[in-house]
């Protein structure tokens, strides 16, 4: 390791990651715990360090911000907006329009506690809204879930790559913990990527008429369009599932966790392995498409116990159960309100699912 590593908050790292990947425009309305993103971008705007960064607007509302992002994305430029839960709800209408118009844009949600105003603590309760198409109409989009500051820095690049490859909004779902957490990182060298923008509106330059619209008044047209969006997502399900695994090869129990919960799970797995308890971790990196192929492979390979750890009242656990289809026991450890489980609680919950844990519970039941 060398000494020229950076030391940044997750939100700051995300902002610099976006700038280094050639961000052209940012529009947003600040909201804790995501505000360091616009703060960092505002400080860099106009400095000349990132000449491609040509627009920064603190909009009057989230509605303005998402629609400005849409407008810029329609020209083929790299546009981003960032927010937290209440603002993410307000942006859903725009995300639906962007999905319909097949626009590549990056939307960051630094998940705080909800519903309503909630509080500023970390939650993962926007999982459904992010992964199931939170706006109206039927659409799906890619959702990326970093679990460290280095990934907060790296994922804007991956997000834009996927957004342009598939022409769709990509959501980067972080949590309040990751936004505020500071870690050491070395920025990866991101090659400047030129994406295909032949579809973009050009102001009739060269007299090509490009129309980006979400309105298809003829019923068969709309039907074809929705089928097109659906087949595109099916292609993504086949090609873009991403996950990380730790110690799953011989695991009796596999923890499924993302974001800050994956960090707790890493510590729990290490500690349990030190005691020869066969526990592993499957960390979804894409929440959508959900890494169902790897989970299926683990179940096919004999894993019969899954523990989902998440900061909500049970959301990702539904996707895990859908994949498991009754072939594995699926339990969950949930915390809400901005609270986190301790690594000891994660360890105990995982150990309870092992055969020795089962035996102990059975003995305790007999004693009672």
């Amino acid at each position, binding site marked *: *390791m060398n*000494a020229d*590593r950076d*030391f940044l908050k997750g939100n700051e790292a995300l902002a610099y990651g976006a700038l280094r990947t050639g961000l052209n425009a940012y529009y947003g309305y600040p909201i804790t715990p995501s505000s360091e993103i616009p703060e960092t971008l505002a400080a860099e705007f106009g400095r000349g360090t990132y000449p491609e960064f040509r627009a920064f607007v603190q909009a009057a509302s989230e509605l303005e911000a998402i629609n400005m992002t849409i407008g810029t994305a329609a020209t083929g430029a790299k546009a981003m907006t960032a927010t937290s839960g209440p603002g993410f709800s307000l942006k859903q209408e725009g995300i639906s329009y962007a999905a319909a118009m097949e626009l590549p844009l990056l939307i960051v949600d630094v998940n705080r506690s909800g519903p309503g105003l909630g509080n500023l603590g970390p939650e993962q309760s926007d999982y459904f809204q992010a992964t199931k198409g939170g706006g109206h109409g039927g659409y799906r989009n890619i959702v990326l879930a970093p679990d460290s500051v280095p990934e907060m820095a790296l994922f804007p690049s991956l997000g834009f790559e996927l957004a342009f490859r598939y022409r769709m909004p990509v959501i980067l779902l972080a949590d309040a*913990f990751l936004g*505020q*957490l*500071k*870690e*050491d990182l070395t920025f990866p060298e991101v090659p400047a990527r030129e994406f295909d923008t032949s579809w973009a509106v050009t102001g009739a330059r060269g007299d090509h008429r490009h129309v980006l619209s979400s309105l298809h008044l003829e019923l068969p047209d709309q039907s074809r369009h929705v089928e097109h969006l659906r087949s595109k997502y099916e292609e993504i399900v086949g090609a873009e599932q991403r996950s990380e695994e730790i110690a799953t090869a011989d695991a009796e129990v596999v923890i499924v966790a993302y974001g800050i919960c994956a*960090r*707790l799970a*890493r*510590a729990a797995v*290490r500690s349990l392995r030190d005691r020869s308890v066969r526990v592993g971790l499957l960390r979804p990196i894409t929440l959508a498409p959900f890494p169902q192929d790897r989970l299926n492979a683990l179940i096919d390979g004999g894993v019969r116990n899954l523990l989902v750890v998440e900061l909500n009242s049970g959301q990702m656990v539904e996707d895990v159960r859908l994949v498991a289809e009754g072939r594995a026991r699926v339990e969950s450890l949930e915390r809400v309100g901005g609270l*986190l489980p*301790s*690594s*000891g609680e994660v360890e105990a919950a995982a150990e309870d699912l092992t055969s020795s844990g089962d035996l102990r519970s059975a003995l305790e039941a007999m004693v009672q």
Partner: protein
Amino acid sequence: MKTEVIVAGHGGQGVLELANWLAYFHLVNGRHVAYTPSYGPETRGGKVKCYVVASDEPIDSPIVEAPDLLIAMNIPSLDYLPLLKSGGTLLVNSSLVQEVPGRSDVIVVEVPAIDLAAALAPYSPVPGKDTSIAANSVMLGAVLAIAHDDWAREQALIEGVFRHFLTDRKAAYIPLNVQAVKSGFEFTSRLEASSVASPAPPLAATAR
């Protein structure tokens, strides 16, 4: 080698800055670091707490559940004392905390940080301005002394840490802060030398 620290106090004491500097000091020493701030909506007076983890290996969880070191800048910070690892160190700002609740299995180091900082008036960039605000830097010096670091070796690194964070207008405060670190280091070193039994603490800030 992993070191886990909780720094606690109230808003306005520079708790987050102290944690920030400590984390960055570990970073320039080649270690992985994680820093997690936690504070209420108030700018001053609210409860502030920060986790710092430094490790030679990549850090699994940034959450500190059982610290090796608790830095208590005020009385309410002692709420975290039950979490301190057995054999760990409680570093107390004795300018504000006169009575330390007993825990026989931990090392207690009492440093009058505000008083030591207030005595550094000659180093104030603004003549006559109270320098007790540098109490957080005094505590940083105490942490280095607890880890048996060598001041002659660390001074340049500490100056580098301050140059990294205290830029523009704040740069004028670098000499004061370096003196404050030195003051805390020297006070704590003398304390350690004079104590009858000084078991080697479990944390080495600069394991090289």
